[in-house]
């Protein structure tokens, strides 16, 4: 039923790693050491960690764009060094420094993130169809936000996953915002799960700040999909601690978010909540927790050093055109 002690430790470790990587990415973007954009995931790391820490290698993952999917991908087991190198535009990046934050790790069955909100529903439906046809017990993890639920692609994708009974777990990471627009201004219902329920997809709403609650719900959904139960929809209510992307102001509608809002939000920091839980339930001691934080810091430092020391690729014209769909 519920998570084992070992699973809780895995989740806690991945949560701390995701938190450290997120903070490092924010800092390096501010220093001008990353290329492209950065959409911080601070405050919203529990859904990705909870959803992806126990996926199988051959399960397919379309991560959320927030945090550029690092929470999801490191939990699924990708090597973070080529991830950071990619975002720095280095030749050792997972896409040889050409994709910035539109990563792919095909060897881990990680595809996306796309630049178009809601676009993931299209390939996800195809992968879901393939997984069903392959009958190897693969599951597709589809991560997106409340903003995506305003797109036609999302509604079509949900519809097709339902009528075709596809093994897809739809994970809606609802932080209440689409850039500046509040979800309550953009949707007639605050629970996106009710939309999926209307399409006959089993749907739940969970606390997206609680990594353990996310993992238990997702594990149940994955088990269901793997055993032929079809799609499920999990809405993880989460928070966005920072601006939509670095360089933009952090607005609620047209107004800056007040300090009191930040103060209240930080009481529900997912790392804080998880730390309280593992200490209270005697899952970890403070000294082990400290070691987990130190290890995460060392992992981040090593990844940064790897990216810094990696060369920038200087491809020939022929090499540049080798990886595009429509070569001249």
């Amino acid at each position, binding site marked *: 039923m*519920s998570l084992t002690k070992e699973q809780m430790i895995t989740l806690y470790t991945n949560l701390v790693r995701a938190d450290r990587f997120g903070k490092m990415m924010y800092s390096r973007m501010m220093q001008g050491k990353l290329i492209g954009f950065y959409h911080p995931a601070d405050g919203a790391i529990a859904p990705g960690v909870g959803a992806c820490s126990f996926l199988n290698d051959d399960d397919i993952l379309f991560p959320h764009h927030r945090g550029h999917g690092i929470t999801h991908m490191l939990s699924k087991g990708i090597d973070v060094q080529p991830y950071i190198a990619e975002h720095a535009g280095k030749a050792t990046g997972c896409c040889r420094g050409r994709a910035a934050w539109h990563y792919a790790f095909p060897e881990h069955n990680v595809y996306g993130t796309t630049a178009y909100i809601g676009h993931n529903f299209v390939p996800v439906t195809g992968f879901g169809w393939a997984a069903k046809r392959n009958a190897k017990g693969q599951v597709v993890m589809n991560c997106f936000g409340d903003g995506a639920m305003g797109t036609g692609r999302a509604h079509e994708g949900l519809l097709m996953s339902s009528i075709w009974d596809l093994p897809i777990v739809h994970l809606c990471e609802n932080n209440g915002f689409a850039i500046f627009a509040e979800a309550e201004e953009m949707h007639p219902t605050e629970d996106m799960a009710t939309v999926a329920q209307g399409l006959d997809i*089993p749907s739940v709403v969970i606390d997206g700040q609680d990594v353990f*609650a996310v993992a238990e*719900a997702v594990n149940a959904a994955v088990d269901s999909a793997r055993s032929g139960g079809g799609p499920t929809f999990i809405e993880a209510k989460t928070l966005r601690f920072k601006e939509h992307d670095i360089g933009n102001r952090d607005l609620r509608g047209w107004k800056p978010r007040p300090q009191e809002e930040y103060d209240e939000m930080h009481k529900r920091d997912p790392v804080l909540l998880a730390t309280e839980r593992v200490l209270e339930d005697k899952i970890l001691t403070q000294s082990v927790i400290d070691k987990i934080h130190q290890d995460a810091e060392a992992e981040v430092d090593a990844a940064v050093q790897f990216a810094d020391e990696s060369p920038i690729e200087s491809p020939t014209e022929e090499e540049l055109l080798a990886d595009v769909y429509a070569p001249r």
Partner: protein
Amino acid sequence: MRPIGIIANPASGKDIRRLVASGTVFSNQEKINIIVRAILAMDAMGVERVVIMPDPSHMAERVIKKLRSRLSTTCVEVLELPYLLGTWQDTVQSVGAMRDLDCASVVVMGGDGTSRVAAKASDDMPLIPVSTGTNNVFPQLVEGTLVGLAAAAVATGAVASGAACARAPRLELSIDGEFRDIALVDLAVVDAANTAARAVWDPLAIKEIFLTCVSASNIGLSAIGGFLPGVEIGEDEMLHVTLGDGGLEVMAPIAPGLLSRLSVTSYEKVRSCEVVRVSNRSAMVALDGEREIAILDGQDADIRLSRRGPVVVNIHKALRLAVASGNYCRDLPQSFAVA
């Protein structure tokens, strides 16, 4: 006239039992519609003031928007709270504030868990628990309009509060001699390392259960007692059921659509003056179906039945008494006079 309070749990009816069982998602839109219908009924009966708990989903504000220009006597307000956490503590805080406002009663919309939280702060203020949850043994499944009429009957004095209300029992949990929490329907000791998704849905994890009511028409963990043949408990008793290998196999609906076969090794009736020590160590205690508190190695957990539970309005009884007193008739002729 005393005001009426309304608590609507925005999180009720949405948990993991939609995945692992066949529970229905109870949308906040439907909760809003129920509140609207209840307030329209209160307005028709002359209720002057209704206060609604605020929540991060702004259900109260949406109720007020829907009721705009439809009310003649009732003023509907959003309860003012110093802060909002988006957790169960909002309910505790709101019930306390409604008690301070001297509310005649508080309508509590949710499942057993929501009623439990409201009962922590209600003291002698009557609750009207209404089912919008998953397992609903404590709340009553009644159309919102009738809920509003029953609440109005008590608030306007058409029915004496004492005539329609009764105090419910509660289970009290103490750990190492210190009072920790309550349950209204069931308290379960489960083999789990964490609270995680909270709901209890794995029958193999359930080791002990304590029940305030036993009925074959219950759903949830209390059904385990309800489906034991020939078992009944009196008002001053709880049922203590122990589960394990090699016992009597009993099938019971522990969640909507989830019929589980459980092995009951023993059961006993326990009177309210007695305390039962939990035999399982290093386990999780689930209160009204939700994992809440860990019993750690070396800790002693004790359970007792208490008659100090919340005061509850019986909706059917309140309506029956209000009808009998001619509350819904204009110029009632003497020939219709009732006792």
